[in-house]
């Protein structure tokens, strides 16, 4: 087992490639190590790469921790950050790590989907930026190549002022999402609805978005229809955490409530 501790992006990238395992906060990787599921031989420790901690307006370095996002992030992303694990996890875990793991339940993903964020992937040879929808390809699968690092998240320069995050879990803290979601609404009514834990990747409820975006002052029956559309559009599964039926229901109710909050 060997670990390298690069101090710059370039040094880090020169270590990447087949078999190289990037290590950020460790909050996902070490669970796999502790459980004996993986045994990395070549680890690239990213904690000391100062560039990754940089946060410049809409560009959030991949190494920015949830703790920082909790206090400095845009409203709905900060709300999501507050639900990531525990204080201990938020001090270590990073937004880039969350993306790298690409869990269907990743708390940070719905926001990125809701605002159409992009993910910056860098290799020694090149840098590319992919949209969130290109980035996620399946359960814990992304387009990142072994020679690439997730280096940053790019948010749009202008974010909708009204944006709300919510997460259904059956414990009041430190819980994996049964459903998590972000709803944003712009002044012109344009609404986005993104959800996690209801499909292999984060998803947008586009039919519900289209329906509600055209209504300036939604009535309660509009909201009910919105809720119904979201429930219909998601593709959740039944597992030991919840059922498909409940997740559909929860997705609809939660996003309706988030929309109500945006409209209030």
């Amino acid at each position, binding site marked *: 087992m060997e670990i390298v501790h690069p101090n710059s992006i370039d040094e880090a990238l020169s270590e990447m490639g087949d078999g190289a395992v990037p290590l950020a906060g460790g909050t996902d990787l070490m669970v796999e190590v*502790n*459980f*004996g599921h993986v045994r990395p031989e070549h680890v690239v420790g990213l904690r000391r790469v100062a560039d990754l901690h940089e946060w410049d307006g809409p560009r959030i370095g991949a190494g920015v921790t949830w703790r920082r996002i909790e206090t400095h992030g845009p409203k709905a992303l900060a*709300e999501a950050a*507050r*639900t990531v694990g525990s204080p201990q996890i938020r001090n270590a875990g990073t937004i880039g790590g969350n993306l790298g793991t690409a869990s269907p339940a990743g708390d940070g993903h719905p926001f990125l989907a809701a605002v159409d964020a992009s993910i910056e992937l860098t290799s020694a040879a090149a840098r590319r930026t992919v949209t969130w929808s290109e980035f996620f390809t399946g359960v814990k699968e992304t387009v990142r190549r072994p020679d690439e690092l997730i280096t940053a998240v790019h948010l749009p320069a202008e974010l909708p002022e009204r944006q*709300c*995050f*919510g*997460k*259904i*879990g*059956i*414990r*009041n*803290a*430190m*819980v*994996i*999402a*049964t459903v*998590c979601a972000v709803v944003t609404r712009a002044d012109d009514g344009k609404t986005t609805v993104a959800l996690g834990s209801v499909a292999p990747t984060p998803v947008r409820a586009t039919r519900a978005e289209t329906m509600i975006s055209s209504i300036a002052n939604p009535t309660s029956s509009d909201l009910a229809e919105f809720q119904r559309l979201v429930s219909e559009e998601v593709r959740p599964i039944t*597992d*030991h*955490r*919840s*059922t498909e*039926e*409940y997740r559909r*229901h*929860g997705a609809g*109710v*939660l996003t309706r*409530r988030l929309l109500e909050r945006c409209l209030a």
Partner: protein
Amino acid sequence: MTTDTVPRIRVPEGGVGESPLRPDGVPKLRGEFEYAQDLSAEGMLWAATVRSPHARARIVSIDLAPALAIGGVHACLTAADVPGRATFGLEHPDQPVLAGDEARFWGEPVAVVAAEDPDTARQAAAAIEVRYEPLDALTDPVEADRRDDVFRRLSIRRGDQALRGSVVVEGTYEVGMQDQAPLGTEAGLAIPDGQGGVDLYATSQYVHIDHEQVVASLGLRPEQVRAHPSGIGGAFGSREDVNLHIHLCLLALHTGRPVKMVYHRSESFTGHVHRHPAWLSYRHEADETGRLVRVQARVMIDGGAYASTTSAVLANACYFAVGPYRCESVSVDGVGSRTNNPPCGAMRGFGAVQVCFGYESQMDRLAVALGMDPLDLREMNALGTGDPMPTTGQVIDTPLPTIDVIRSLQAMPLPEPAATVHHSELPGGSGLTTESHHVRRGVGYALGIKNLGFSEGSDDYAQARVRFTSDGAVVETAAIEVGQGMVTVLAQIARSALGISHVSVAHVDTSKIGSAGSTSASRQTQLSGGATLEAATRLRQRVLSQHDGDELDDEGVWKGDDLLVTWADLSDEDWEETVTFRHPPTTGPDENGQGVIHADFAVAGHRAVVDVDTELGLVKVVRVDTVQDVGRALNPQSVQGQIEGGILQGVGLAVMEELVMKDGVILNPTFTDYLLPTILDAPDVEALLIEQEGSWGPFGAKGVGESPTISSTAAIAAATRAASGKELNRVPIRPQDIALE
């Protein structure tokens, strides 16, 4: 002695009724307390366990060679290497030390290895090649019952079976499989003594029963094995059964080296027994005034693959199936099934928890059917001293203040909803799902009853020794401190009995003292406490009589104002008393389940206040107030600690804690998915203690450990029903049960 002399301190500091500081508090707070996980010895090897990945499979072959080829691996042992009895078990030794021809549950140990370090041990365990032929697993307890694959059936018939009431309610109820989930996982260290024997230091609630089982399976003489009490991180029933104990001793004797093993959390979830899941069906009949006339119950619990304590848990579930209520006509039929699910056994409340959810749900339904207040109905039927138990007919001859519990609970002020609630304490908590206007508040009540000490004719005893030291006394015991504070309370009892302040408690191994029995069944304060009280009392009488004194205190033996003998003088002689304390004898059941089955009883009541987001089905338990029958609170702070901790385990069973099973496999054996309540899920608790002396426990004390878990779950379920209007016949209550049903 004249009245104007200054009286000497006759009441020692830290006696009963006070809450002295825990002697293990400082090391625990500094991180210096030594748990079984922290033990080490020169030349120590580390062990790991190979476990069956099938709920049921024939073991075709085991190839150890790939593991033995790994550098640093010292031993790989299978069933063939067990020199003595091939099986173990608390009541019936039916569980293989290591599975031989067949593995009967998912996670059953098949082989064990010892290696130079934990990493190598785990790699070696993974390298052992076991060929399995999967067999059809029986995982449905109803089918097991049909096939008569059961550990025990118990039928109770009491009173005129033809009796009928005019108001009838029926219901079926289900309780999911809860786990004790003590924070310290199973761990231990076995050290060979160089003469064929072994010293075992391992997580345990009952070292003498470990000793017995280790001796049997190793084929050794009893004196060759010494089981030592060691530091443990909680228990709650999970440490009554043997798990790694025999494995460690086998490996230590095989390698001639000390061997240590620590289970990881996911292994712990398969390495110890769980609370039995239960299926209950009830028919309650009352007359128009609300008097309970007849209760008919069917109780099924699933014991899983091996016996563990299933017969005793089933018995408890049946005996307490009616709850703390008088009833003339009772019929209970119970069955504990044998399946290929994980073995179930002891957990705090031991059968009484499961049925309480059933009978208290029924009492609420009956109240609705009668148009009565639920507490009035309970009060009208409350079981008390002098009444026969509705199930066994045993006349209750110790105080049972059910009425006082109900009235006190009724009198406790119900707090107004707070004007503002921080979002973290609303249903859904930090997930921001819920605002105050989504919440409906509900209030619910439940009462529970349980026995104290072992039942059904078992010879239940505890031995303790009190010995003088150069400046006071030490209580020697093999009774296990699991965190509850026995190490404090035994010293308090000895202080009050002796009249001195300098008393400590020493845990000694099985070769140095007789059994204290298990730290379970809420029994140690009464049993080991009883032994301590008697030993201390005898010792005091003996020293006073030998020196013709009339008082003993921290200075020595006095006669009037004369100090006759100092502690330094006393230490010239060996002063000790060893007492084996037994509670009043009990009997097994007759063919109708009748008999003097139990030694003592305790009753408690809970009032839960919950906030429910009915649309999303999320529940926040806001507060749980309780009134508990404690006999006498020997250490009020410890009693409060047992109550608050027990209630939170009840919260867990009510709304989040369940091992989810599929075809015999536990789907959530991690702390990510087996959810324990966090500090933000904990309700506020106010506890009122009913102190009515008259029990045989020391100073009238009753055990207090289990009562808090018994009816708290049922009270929360009742409150959630009140808030949601849903039937909720199953715990834990899942969001979909409220939002979708």
